[in-house]
C-alpha cells in the first residue's frame, strides 16, 4: 500500500507520462461525487464515499475509520458551503495527509463554478435555523451542476495524474454525452408538470425545482434543521389545501410521520425522493438518481392532473 502511494506521489510530482499501476485514491463526502469520479476516472481511480446515499449528509459521524481512508487519499472531493462542517474538519486534521488539506491540489470543492442558490443577501443569524451562510449546499440535484462537477473532477484528475489526460477527456466526453441525452428525456417527461407547486421536507431541492421548473411553496420543517411543529404543520396543511399542492417530497432520512399526516389531511401524495446515489440499491449512479426521481414524480402525478 505504502509503495503504491509513493508511486503515485512520484508521478504527480514529476509528471511522468508512465502508465501507473497505482490508482488515484479519491475520497468524496457524497456518493454522487464518487459516482461522477468513477465515470470520469474509470480504471485509473478508486473511490470511497464517506456518506451513504440514504444518510443525512449534514450529520455524518467523524469515525476514525474515515481518518484511515483520508490518510491514504490522493484527492478529496467535498460539497463545500459548510455541508461537511460537522465532521470533516477534524478528520482532515487527523489524516496526517497534507495533500488533501484545503488549498492543496488534492482538495476539490465541488461547489466552485456551480449554480448555487439561496446565497443570503442579508445578515444571517441562527434564529433562521441551520442556515448555510454561503448558499444552499444541495446543488448537485441539478444535473447541469453535475456536468460542471464532472468537468472540475476531470481537470483535477489531469492535474494530479497527467498521464491519464486522454482517458479523462474521453471518459468526460462519454459522461457528458450520456448526461445530455438523459437530460432531454427527463425534461420531456417533466415538461407537463412545469409550474407545479410542491412542498418539501427540508430545503434540499431548490436546484432540482429550478431545473424542472417546479415551484416550492413551503417546507415541512418550519426552518432548516428545525423539526416540524404543530402550528407550522397546520400552516402547511392550509397552504397545501389552498394552493392545491399535489405532492410532498421527503428525503429518505426524515421521519415520514408528519408528512404522512399532512398527506392524509390534504390528499397530497407523500413521495420519498432520493437526493443521492445509493439512496436505495436501484440508484447505482448519478444518472440513476434522476432516472429514479423523475420516474417516481411522474408516477405520483398520474391521476393528479
Amino acid at each position, binding site marked *: *500500500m505504502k509503495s503504491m502511494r509513493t508511486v503515485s506521489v512520484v508521478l504527480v510530482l514529476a509528471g511522468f507520462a508512465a502508465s501507473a499501476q497505482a490508482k488515484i485514491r479519491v475520497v468524496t463526502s457524497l456518493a454522487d461525487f464518487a459516482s461522477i469520479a468513477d465515470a470520469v476516472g474509470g480504471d485509473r481511480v478508486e473511490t470511497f464515499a464517506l456518506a451513504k446515499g440514504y444518510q443525512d449528509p449534514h450529520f455524518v459521524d467523524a469515525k476514525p*475509520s474515515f481518518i484511515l481512508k483520508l490518510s491514504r487519499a490522493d484527492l478529496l472531493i467535498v460539497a463545500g458551503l459548510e455541508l461537511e*462542517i460537522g465532521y470533516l474538519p477534524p478528520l482532515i486534521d487527523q489524516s496526517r495527509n497534507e495533500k488533501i488539506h484545503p488549498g492543496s491540489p488534492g482538495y476539490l470543492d465541488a461547489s466552485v463554478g456551480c*449554480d448555487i442558490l439561496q446565497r443570503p443577501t442579508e445578515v444571517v443569524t441562527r434564529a433562521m435555523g441551520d442556515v448555510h451562510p454561503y448558499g444552499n449546499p444541495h446543488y448537485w440535484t*441539478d444535473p447541469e*451542476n453535475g456536468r*460542471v462537477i464532472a468537468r472540475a473532477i476531470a481537470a483535477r484528475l489531469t492535474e494530479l495524474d497527467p498521464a491519464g489526460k486522454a482517458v479523462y477527456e474521453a471518459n468526460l466526453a462519454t459522461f457528458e454525452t450520456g448526461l*445530455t441525452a438523459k437530460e432531454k428525456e427527463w425534461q420531456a417527461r417533466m415538461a407537463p408538470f412545469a409550474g407545479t407547486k410542491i412542498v418539501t421536507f427540508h430545503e434540499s431541492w431548490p436546484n432540482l425545482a429550478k431545473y424542472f421548473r417546479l415551484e416550492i411553496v413551503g417546507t415541512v420543517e418550519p426552518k432548516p434543521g428545525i423539526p416540524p411543529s404543530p402550528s407550522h404543520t397546520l400552516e402547511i396543511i392550509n397552504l397545501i389545501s389552498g394552493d392545491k399542492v399535489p405532492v410532498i417530497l421527503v428525503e*429518505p*432520512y426524515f421521519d415520514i410521520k408528519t408528512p404522512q399526516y399532512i398527506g392524509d389531511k390534504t390528499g397530497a401524495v407523500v413521495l420519498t425522493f432520493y437526493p443521492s446515489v445509493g439512496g436505495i440499491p436501484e440508484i447505482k449512479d448519478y444518472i440513476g438518481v434522476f432516472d429514479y426521481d423523475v420516474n417516481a414524480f411522474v408516477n405520483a402525478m398520474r391521476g393528479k392532473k
Partner: protein
Amino acid sequence: MAQEASPPQPAPAPTPSPTPAPAAPAQTANYFNPAISVIGNLLAVAGQNQVENLPSFSLRESEIGFQAVVDPYARADFFFSVGENDISVEEGYLTLTALPWDLQMKLGRMRVAFGKVNTLHLHVLPWPDEPLPIPDILGSEDGWIETGGSISRLIPLPGDVFSELTLQVFRGDSPNLFAASTHGGLAYNGHYRVFADLSDSTNIDVGASYAFGPNGTTTTAMTNLSGVDAVFRWKPLRTGLYRQLVLRGELYHSNREQPDGTQNATGWYMSGEYQFARRWWVGARGESSQVAVDAAIKNRGAAATLTFNPSEFTQFRGELRRRRYADSYTANELLFQVQFAIGAHGAHPF
C-alpha cells in the same frame, strides 16, 4: 464560464448560468481571525450533599474556544475554561499536521489522552457531571490536564481497522495526582486506541492507557495509572437522526506510593445513552471508585439522565443522582444543566 469549455453535445434548455465567482466566503478585514466559539454551562442543583456541596445555581466551566490554521504545517486550538470568578487554560496547543510517517504532534497544554472521558470537554459529556473515577482516581473534577508534548502515529491493521498509538510527556503537575519537584521528574502517558466498524450502523472503540510520574509525597514516590476504555455505538444511518444507542465504560487503576504505604485504588463507570426522538435522549450510569490517596474510602453512585436538544446549539439536561460516600453517607440530588453555544459551528461530538 465552465459552460464555454465546449461540451461535446450542446446542453438542453434550461441551462443555468454557473456563478462567475468561486463559492468562497467574502474577504473581510477579519478573514484570518480564528474561529471563535463560546459554550455557556449553567448548573442548578437541588437536594442535600455534605461532601460535594455544589451551589444552587452556578455558571461553571463555560468554554471559550479560538481555533485556526497557523500555516501550511500546523493548526492551533485554545480553549479557556471560565468560571464566575476565574479563567484558566483548559487546553492551548499547536498541532503539527504535516509530519511524515503518519505522525502527528501536539505541543502545549492539553487534556491528557488517558482513557476516554478525560479527553472530552464538559459540553460533550453525556452527563452534567464527571463520573467518580475522574475526581477519585485522577484527583479532581477537571481530570488530568497537563503541559508538555504528545506524539501519535496511525498503525493500520488488516481490514481497515483504525489504530493509533499516542505517547505523551508532561511536566508532572496535576492536583492530587502528579507533582514533579525537578525538571527531570516528568509524567508520561501512553494510549493505544483501536476503532472498528462492525457494520454500517455499529462500531466499537476500545483503548488502553498507562501512565506514571512522581506524586510528590516524597522525593521518590511514584504513581502508576492504568486504564481500559470501551465505547459501542449503534446508529442506523438512514434513521440516525432519530435513533442512536451509545454504551460506554471505563476501568481505572491507581498504584500510588505514599509515606504511609502504597495505595491501590480501582474505579469504574458504565453508562448507556439512548436517543428515542429527534431531540430527546435518556441515559443511565453506574459508578464506583476507591480514592487514590486513601483506598480505604470507596464511593459509589447511580444516575439517570434525560436530555432535550431544541437545536444543535442548546441543550437542557436533568440528572437524578444518588451517591454513597465512603459507605457511610448517601446524597440524593437533582442536577439540571443548560448549555448554549454561540459562534463558530464546531464539529459534532463523536
